[in-house]
């Protein structure tokens, strides 16, 4: 080993500080790699970057070489000796964990990364890294634009809300721009607000988390631009408390951005103001619903509000408020810096731009895949995902979170865009994809949908609060083979009542996974319970 040669320059090693990387042991790995380097007299600099989103390879360790960054993963502490022995510091590719050049890994190379262009490349809290890769270019443009021109650019992009409802972002911004703040409680003229919905509660989704942990300045920049566009000088990020790593990173990033003049009362000496604060949720799924989120931010129970009035007109503290998902706001810097049309050139039909799909659950290669709309579900499951983690046949795929349908194999060729999914009675939601193998019991999944609604309903409307409890009971009777035919009919009626009568999507969509399970997997409702599909 030619350590005397490599010793002359400091080798940069990248080990992510992302939640999944940490959950797979990245912190301990970083410590032990540092210790081993010292033992061997090697000079290294460990950079704690964000994740590339290739989660099956985490912890993914990258070594910087003249030819680019070489990836090794998934690395465990037991691999450290052999990595050093096989000269990974000089970019030797012979180690079995070597994945070659990171940028050439097909899973990453085939993606169209706009929102996640910097993810995993940079140290998430380094302002220098962010600016070196186009960071704050959108903000600099926005600072010299009229609010209306900023809103027009967002309209041109065709961006639709990435939280799940897919409402056109530019229209929402226009409404807030046109609204006049009412009198605040202290009788001073009120102010407008920008609220980022970072209550990413859907199982199978982690794109918001990745933005916040890998590229927090992009969100900060997007929110600041939103504030400039509509004349709001205060922003809140409502973050779920289940994300402690994102919390830490956001707070570090906000403090640094303030210190450097990208936030505060005189942004980049423009005389313009935007202040930003992270507020934590407290384990309540319903607070991902925008009106419930606003109640929570105001310090109340997260009870859903009736709409209208829209939050754009009567929002936080009764004032005009933009409530946007993390991904919507994170798309804004690109749109401002490259132009709305550049963004609209991706995608198809009315689904423009890209969507970060998140492959999760029982899948061999789970991770984040940002692509233009229109890729089919099957391509994601097979070409990217590589089949199930368990190696068993895939049976059901839930797309869009716990309030969205389970898709059987016959629907996996559906293109991933809002309209095509709607046409088959499904939804893209926030782009989460949860895979189940053939051991899944779909009546048990249907029961869970109702049980989850029991636990998480805010309780304001009866169809959701009581309907979900009755739903669990009816499904239990079906599973116990009590009056099956009439209980199936009752379940069907109950689902219709919840869909038609609930105040918000919690009760209104909880029946979707239930109905899809009944429709596409009837065999799971026709056998005496308890049964286990895998052993059948």
């Amino acid at each position: 080993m030619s350590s005397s040669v490599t010793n002359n320059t400091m080798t940069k090693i990248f080990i992510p500080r992302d939640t999944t990387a940490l959950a797979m042991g990245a912190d301990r790995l970083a410590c032990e790699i540092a210790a081993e380097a010292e033992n061997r007299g090697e000079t290294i600099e460990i950079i704690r970057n964000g994740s590339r989103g290739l989660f099956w390879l985490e912890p993914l360790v990258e070594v910087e070489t003249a030819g680019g960054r070489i990836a090794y993963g998934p690395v465990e502490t037991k691999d450290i000796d052999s990595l050093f022995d096989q000269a990974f510091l000089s970019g030797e590719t012979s180690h079995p964990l070597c994945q070659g050049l990171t940028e050439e890994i097909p899973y990453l190379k085939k993606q169209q990364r706009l929102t996640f262009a910097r993810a995993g490349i940079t140290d998430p809290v380094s302002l220098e890294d962010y600016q070196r890769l186009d960071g704050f270019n959108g903000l600099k443009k926005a600072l010299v634009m009229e609010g209306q021109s900023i809103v027009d650019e967002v309209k041109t992009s065709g961006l639709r809300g990435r939280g799940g409802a897919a409402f056109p972002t530019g229209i929402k911004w226009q409404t807030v721009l046109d609204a006049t703040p009412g009198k605040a409680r202290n009788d001073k003229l009120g102010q407008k607000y920008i609220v980022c919905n970072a209550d990413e509660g859907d199982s199978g989704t982690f794109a918001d988390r990745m933005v916040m942990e890998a590229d927090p300045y992009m969100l900060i920049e997007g929110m600041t631009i939103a504030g400039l566009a509509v004349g709001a000088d205060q922003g809140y990020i409502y973050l779920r408390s289940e994300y402690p790593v994102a919390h830490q990173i956001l707070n570090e990033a906000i403090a640094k951005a303030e210190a450097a003049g990208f936030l505060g009362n005189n942004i980049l000496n423009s005389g313009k103001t935007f202040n930003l604060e992270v507020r934590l949720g407290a384990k309540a799924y319903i607070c991902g619903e925008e009106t419930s989120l606003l109640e929570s931010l105001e310090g109340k129970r997260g009870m859903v509000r009736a709409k209208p009035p829209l939050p754009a007109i009567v929002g936080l503290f009764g004032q005009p408020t933009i409530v946007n998902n993390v991904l919507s706001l994170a798309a804004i810097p690109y749109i401002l810096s490259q132009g709305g049309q550049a963004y609209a050139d991706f995608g198809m039909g009315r689904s423009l731009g890209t969507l970060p799909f998140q492959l999760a659950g029982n899948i061999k290669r789970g991770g984040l895949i940002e692509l233009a709309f229109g890729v089919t579900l099957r391509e994601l499951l097979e070409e990217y995902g590589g089949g199930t983690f368990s190696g068993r046949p895939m049976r059901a795929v839930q797309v869009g979170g716990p309030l969205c349908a389970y898709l059987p194999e016959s629907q996996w060729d559906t293109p991933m865009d809002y309209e095509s999914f709607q046409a088959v009675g499904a939804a893209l939601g926030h782009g989460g994809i949860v895979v189940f193998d053939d051991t899944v019991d779909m009546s048990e999944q249907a029961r869970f949908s109702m049980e989850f609604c029991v636990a998480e309903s805010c309780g304001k409307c009866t169809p959701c609060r009581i309907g979900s409890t009755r739903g669990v009971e009816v499904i239990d009777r079906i599973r116990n083979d009590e009056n099956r035919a009439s209980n199936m009919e009752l379940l069907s009626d109950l689902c219709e009542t919840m869909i038609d009568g609930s105040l918000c999507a919690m009760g209104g969509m909880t029946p979707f996974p239930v109905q899809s399970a009944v429709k596409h997997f009837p065999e799971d409702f026709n056998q005496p319970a308890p049964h286990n599909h895998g052993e059948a």
Partner: protein
Amino acid sequence: MTAVNEQMLPLVREVISGLQHKPGALLPILHEIQNRLGYIPPESVPLIAEALNQSRADIHGVISFYHQFRSTAPGKHTIEVCRAEACQSMGARQLEAHAKATLGVDYHGTTSDQNITLEEVYCLGNCACSPSVRINDEIVGRVTPEKFDQLVDELRSQTLEVH
């Protein structure tokens, strides 16, 4: 009022006065009290109510609405097991059953040695490396029953070292 809770009230007052000026101050106040004390002593409710000019019922209503806030002391460590769909697809139901059996408690319960409180959680955002648990502020992925036992052993030996 118990003597233990009474000792905590100066700290509660300090938290309230530090945060009550914020718009929508209640959640930040509740979080900070729970961060510092592990729970929100019922005796703090009237103090918060007075500071925010709200009724005790309002404050109690908010505490009881959110799954995270608790009014009794937890164990030294809290383990949250994810129950959501991505984790289900990777064996979370078996893991839940194992966790309850191993610790001898149901959700919201604390082991008899006051060491570990077991809680449920719906999604930790680690869905590509399921099933997941959170131990205090640390999230762990691909948790098999064997790995769970190992994590519990580590917590128990940590506690022994502290004592």
